């Protein structure tokens, strides 16, 4: 009984802590419901795709793919090039994907091969691999862009004539996907007011009674995310998905059944890297600016933290975990600065929380995972002994 209770607590400890923190912080922040919903919807659209790209390696038993940073870098290279070529709008995003995909595939294959040589230590290996690749990325962006890879747009380049600036404006594709199908929810009373302001553009208008204010919905982004979810659900049902589940549980058994274990693992990492590349492009089109040397770093860490906050573990993660995670994680970041300011007059506490919580949650999840595995072994030992004693 008690053991079961502890199991349930351990399984849901992380999301529970976040729900409790948010429950205190929301009233303290003084934000309106409408504002919170608007912010959350924006951030779900921004981040969910990146987090979803983590699911497939977990399914293949390779843990949290810290190597998704590699995909993010590929996406950013694509974005830099379309900025230079001045391709805007949806065509711009598509061509960024087109450029990023082969780079992500090559990086994924590279990463997969290395992880196959580091079986059982995939997470730390992919984490360090991210740092290594960051060095190469910096070499490309800081030195090769300009002299080797032609960059003609001077607004992209550093004043010395080569290398890309730290902050690049993505004005050409900013919010292009989010606003592709403009959709707005308004209260019955606010409708007229809204239409007065935005008289010249066309919107899908959804009117809800007893609702104040207006909320924009990034509908096209949500459709892309929904398609991704359908892809994952379908993927789980395929032979390849089944093989990945088998490989995750026992590589030796899968191998003796004739499943190409190493190849399957590489495919999992390649899919994840390519999707992380698309995810980063979607993320940055929402942000509108690219921090050439930092954006990808944060992508990996915050996506993994969000997934873990959603209740996922190193060995098991579902689509529901992604959405619960992204909502709880961002809810806290929205309310924490204001709550901090109102409580102790210091808005910086929000950013502090962001970093502290991300690393803390990842550490906690890893510890919980090890603890759980030890307990499972203990339980197996006990049942085996009792069964055989009879």
């Amino acid at each position, binding site marked *: 009984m008690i053991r079961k209770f502890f199991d349930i607590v351990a399984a849901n400890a992380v999301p529970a802590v976040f729900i409790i923190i948010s429950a205190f912080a929301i009233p303290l922040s003084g934000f309106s419901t409408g504002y919170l919903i608007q912010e959350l919807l924006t951030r779900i659209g921004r981040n969910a795709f990146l987090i979803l790209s983590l699911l497939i390696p977990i399914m293949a038993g390779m843990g949290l793919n810290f190597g998704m940073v590699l995909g993010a870098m590929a996406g950013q290279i694509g974005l830099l090039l379309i900025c230079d070529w001045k391709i805007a709008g949806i065509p711009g995003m598509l061509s960024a994907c087109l450029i990023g995909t082969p780079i992500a595939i090559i990086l994924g294959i590279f990463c997969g091969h290395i992880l196959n040589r580091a079986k059982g230590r995939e997470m730390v290996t992919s984490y360090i691999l991210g740092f290594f690749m960051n060095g190469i990325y910096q070499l490309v962006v800081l030195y090769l862009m300009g002299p080797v890879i032609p960059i003609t747009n001077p607004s992209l380049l550093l004043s010395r004539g080569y290398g890309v600036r730290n902050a690049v404006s993505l004005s050409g594709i900013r919010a292009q996907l989010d606003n592709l199908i403009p959709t707005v929810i308004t209260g019955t009373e606010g409708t007229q007011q809204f239409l007065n302001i935005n008289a010249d553009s066309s919107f899908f208008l959804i009117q809800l009674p007893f609702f104040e204010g207006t909320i924009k919905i990034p509908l096209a982004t949500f459709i892309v995310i929904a398609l991704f979810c359908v892809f994952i659900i379908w993927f789980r049902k*395929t*032979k390849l998905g089944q093989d990945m589940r088998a490989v995750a549980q026992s590589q030796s058994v899968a191998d003796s059944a004739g499943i190409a274990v190493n190849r399957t693992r590489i495919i999992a990492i390649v899919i994840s890297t390519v999707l992380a590349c698309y995810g980063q492009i979607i993320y940055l089109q929402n942000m509108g600016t690219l921090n050439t040397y930092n954006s990808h770093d944060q992508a990996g860490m915050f996506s993994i933290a969000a997934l873990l906050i959603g209740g996922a573990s190193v060995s098991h993660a579902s689509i529901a975990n992604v959405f619960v995670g992204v909502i709880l994680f961002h809810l806290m970041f929205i309310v924490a600065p204001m709550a901090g300011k109102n409580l102790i007059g210091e808005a910086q506490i929000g950013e502090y929380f962001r970093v502290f919580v991300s690393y803390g949650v990842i550490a906690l999840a890893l510890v919980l995972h090890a603890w759980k595995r030890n307990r499972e072994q203990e339980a197996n030992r006990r049942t085996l*002994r009792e069964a055989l004693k009879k």
Partner: protein
Amino acid sequence: MSENVINTSLLRLEHIGKEFYGNRVLNDISFSIEAGEILGLIGENGAGKSTLLNILFGMPVINSTGGHEGRIYIDGQPVNFTSPQQALAAGIGMVHQEFSLIPGFTATENILLNREVLNGSLLRYLFGKRLATLDREAMRQRAMKAINTLGVHISTDMVVSEMPVGYKQFIEIAREIDRKHTRLLFLDEPTAVLTETEAEILITALKKLAREGIAIVFISHRLEEIKAFCNRIIILRDGNLITDQPANELSTKRIASLMVGRNNEQKDFYAEPIKLDKSEDKDEPDTSAPDSPDAKKKKKKKPALKVENLWVDMPGETVLDVSFEVMRGEIFGIGGLAGQGKLGIPNGIMGLYPAGGKVRVFGKKLHLNKPRNALNREMAFVSEDRRGVGLLLDEPLDWNITFTAMQMQGKFLLGIPHIFQIRNEIAMASEARKYIKALDIKCTGPSQKAGELSGGNQQKVCLARAFALEPNILLICEPTRGIDIGAKNLVLDTLRQYNKEHNTTIIITSSELEELRSICNRVAIVGGGKIAGVLPASAPAEDFGLLMMGQMRQQENENEEA
């Protein structure tokens, strides 16, 4: 095919032989199996069973070590498998001793592992079958059919990790018979983990399969079962085929003695080195002197080591419930087949694997699970994993020999304990030289690295380190594994001598029964994680054989009376 050629056997082996690095493990094996026949394959560890199976399955280990001698025919056609997949395609199925099932998968998913029924779809034709979705319903029906063939009732949706052990065995067999053209099924100790009723159900199911024309090769150590179930019995010993006879012509006792292979005439030879036949023979009065006063309450002397209800979770060598006593000054052997738990006993006592139960050393309780506790009680251990646990391969010999004594007893150190101490290199080197001379360790000197020595000399270094602790109880696992005959005798002689000179209690765990009988006073045989029986070394070989084969305790009692 088999209808056309009536006179050809399903499988025929001709003069199969195999050498590993000049070490002959199989010699001129020839036999054949007909469709629907059930063949029992018996042999001790190291008799060559697994090599024979590896050859039949085209395991890479055979090819990478130079292939094998002789020819294999299936339906009269010569075959030469170079991968297990080819053997599977030719209709040979194998049920392994360890379950090769995926724990989190259902029965259906496991039975059809990598042979899933797939839906047809456009993607399948564009990107290959791995992107086709699974047809769960069709899979369930096929799994159900395979399970029903076995005559058992297991839900197809049950997750394997939640199944009782017996069920897992059935799932594994179901997987083999689901392959459409499986005609020859190898079962490696399928009943070892089953209860009696489960074993009966399994055997009924196998008989049913045999009637349908599938030939079965059944490897088991339960003699009664083999006798009752098989049509024909083949016994391997030391790589040779000893017997190929119908089962009803052989008695259980005869099988046991053929398998162990030592004739009764040889008995005297093994009995010779025995100094103490039974524990009562020892009458040294000093035994109980250093112990606590409650020793006097007992009429007999207090045992050096008393083990009660020990369990050890050592992977592949699980110990379930073991109790025994070892007298002071005794050499006690622990034998039994691989995987039955004999190695788990010393490893558990020394705290190298999670263990529980009561262990008393000279009457005082030993707290398990920490090697330091055991070492503090003047016990020393020589591991079977010489290169992993036994030696610091990149360090010189004198370090290796003195390391444990230095750590545990503060020997070979200069300075003030706990405050400032440095190694006494001179004392270390002279200690090392002493053992290099005494044990005839072939090396360039105390500063040579342990990893550079041959296996036999490494084993001697391990022994030297144990001796340097001056233990009261010495536990040794597989003292002669992987070393040549000359070194073997020297190691055994050293142990005998050390036992005689210091009255040290020695517990030897070994797979080689002959070796145990030549050096030990008593030998315990471990089977299925429990002690099957304890016999004096002079007991006839076939009694040991019977114990190994799971002929239970009734024999043990009879033998001890005799």
